[in-house]
């Protein structure tokens, strides 16, 4: 039975993920995910975002590994017009707390604030992040990542074209 992550291990790993995203190393970011991974961002209008399921309600993002990789490779292309020129982002990850064991991995939660600048407009995506992290040999991988935004709509942000 693999051991739970410590908070330090978890933070190091989440900070590493954040750095890859801010450096726009998208394929390397996608490589952090397991083959059965799910990356989700719930809809701000959802009445119960913790319990909601993309199979029966509209999410903003619900990516299995094919779309995780597809999203990553799309963002490396100039033909991804919404991110050309690329935004500048800064992912802040804080309040990391190990919740317990789940699905053979470590369930943890964190608070996030992702600042994003496109031309002269900076906005922020803030929310809570729920992860399930598993060990694959020496490496850590993400099996589940669900972000619940502290927003009622994307009125101020416009679109969500970056990876949170």
């Amino acid at each position, binding site marked *: 039975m693999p051991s739970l992550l410590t908070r330090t291990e978890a933070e190091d790993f989440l900070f590493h993920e954040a750095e890859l995203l801010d450096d726009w190393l998208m394929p390397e970011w996608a490589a952090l995910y397991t083959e059965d991974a799910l990356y989700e961002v719930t809809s701000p209008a959802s009445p119960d975002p913790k319990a909601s399921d993309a199979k*029966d*309600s509209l*999410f903003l993002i619900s990516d299995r590994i094919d779309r995780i990789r597809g999203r990553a490779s799309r963002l490396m292309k100039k*033909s991804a017009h*919404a991110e050309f020129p690329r935004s500048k982002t800064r992912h802040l990850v804080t309040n990391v707390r190990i919740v317990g064991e789940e699905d053979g991995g470590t369930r943890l939660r964190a608070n996030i604030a992702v600042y994003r600048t496109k031309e002269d407009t900076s906005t922020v995506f803030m929310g809570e992040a729920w992860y399930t992290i598993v060990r694959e040999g020496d490496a850590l991988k993400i099996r589940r990542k669900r972000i619940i935004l502290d927003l*009622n709509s994307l009125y101020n942000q416009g679109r969500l074209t970056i990876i949170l």
Partner: protein
Amino acid sequence: MPLDNSQQAALVQANAEKGSFRVSRTAYKSKEVFEQEKKLIFEKCWLYLGHGTELKKKGDFASRRVGGRDIIFIRDRNDQVAAFYNTCTHRGAKICREHNGNARTFACPYHGWVFNSEGKLVSQNANSGYVENLNEDGHLDLVPVPRLENYRDFYFLNYNPKAISLHDYLAGARDAIDAICDQTEDKQIILPGEHSYSVRANYKFMAENSYDGYHLLPVHASFFDHLRDQYAGTAASHVVDETIASYNSRGAVRGLGMGHAILDSYVPTGRPVAQWLPSMGAALKPEIEAKYARLVERFGKERADYIAETQKNLVIFPNLVINDILSTTVRYVEPEGPDMMRVTAWALGPRDESPELRAMRLDNFVSFLGPAGFGSPDDIEMLEICQTALEHTPIEWNEISKGMAPGGDRRTITGAPDDEIQMQAYWTQWDMIMRGIETLEA
């Protein structure tokens, strides 16, 4: 007051001899034009409010802004759908502050006046100070919008009490809505969830983009790359390039009258109703093929093929988009200023769909549509760069001439999928309304 002919004549110009249809960029950025649109377009056209299936039980309500006005959309205790202005008739407070919910009454938080779900004032929360029969004539009841009608559960309101019926207003768009609703013998319902976001551009750019076939490859190249990757090594691996090569040889854009138009096209994404692709997995094949077979039984092959296999991008003048493509979206565009719009989009699907097909429908939706999909964000980028460029350059005209016909009523012409006749239909209607030629009154 309509713009006088000399002002308005400058904004939309159709010259059949030159094959030129052009629209002044002023129409997308001027504050004066926007103020005129508020009076002439948004107080005379039928504007989409919501879908009857969003209000499942008596007392279910949603509060939303339509054409600049705050409305309570509610199913009352008699199972009637109603639309009231969201303001207390006492001293103005917003009485419904929740996005949606269920209520038998609305109590104004300010002085405690209470209204029931039919809008009747049932209490003034006062034992004295008011004449007994002050509200005998009902002037203190919640004020309903002047007109509220529905077509197949799509509810529209109109701020002009003299407006023609919704039925007549929709004209040829009724058939397009039928092709979507007839996908199921049960009913189409709005699925849980919504996307709500802003776009820094004029609302008319969103209308233009929503049924534009011409931009498909330049804008969505990366989405088609993704599809090719998904289909690689499967029986469908050739589908993307084959369909792209034949895009313009099948389908059409059609003016439906009254400024509405539709793009009928063939794009290799599959459709929940009813076009199966191997990428959907074998488990869904029987259900999807059964749906197609039932459509043939009900409507004959030609209509069944149209319903099942055609991707449909429909714009109902002035600001409602219904795209029935790899998933079905109802997208309402609220103008907030010459350079700003708020978009709210929902997913629509048959009530009797299996959970597995429903899941695929929603998965298709978020793969492309919405502010985080692989498609819509790039469309939105185009709208925003059009807005910013035309605001900061002195060029006067947008050239919207592709496929221009030599004559005829420009609101009912047909063209190839990558033509622009659907925008010519839109702007012709816009021009006629802004000049007072088309009053939309009985």
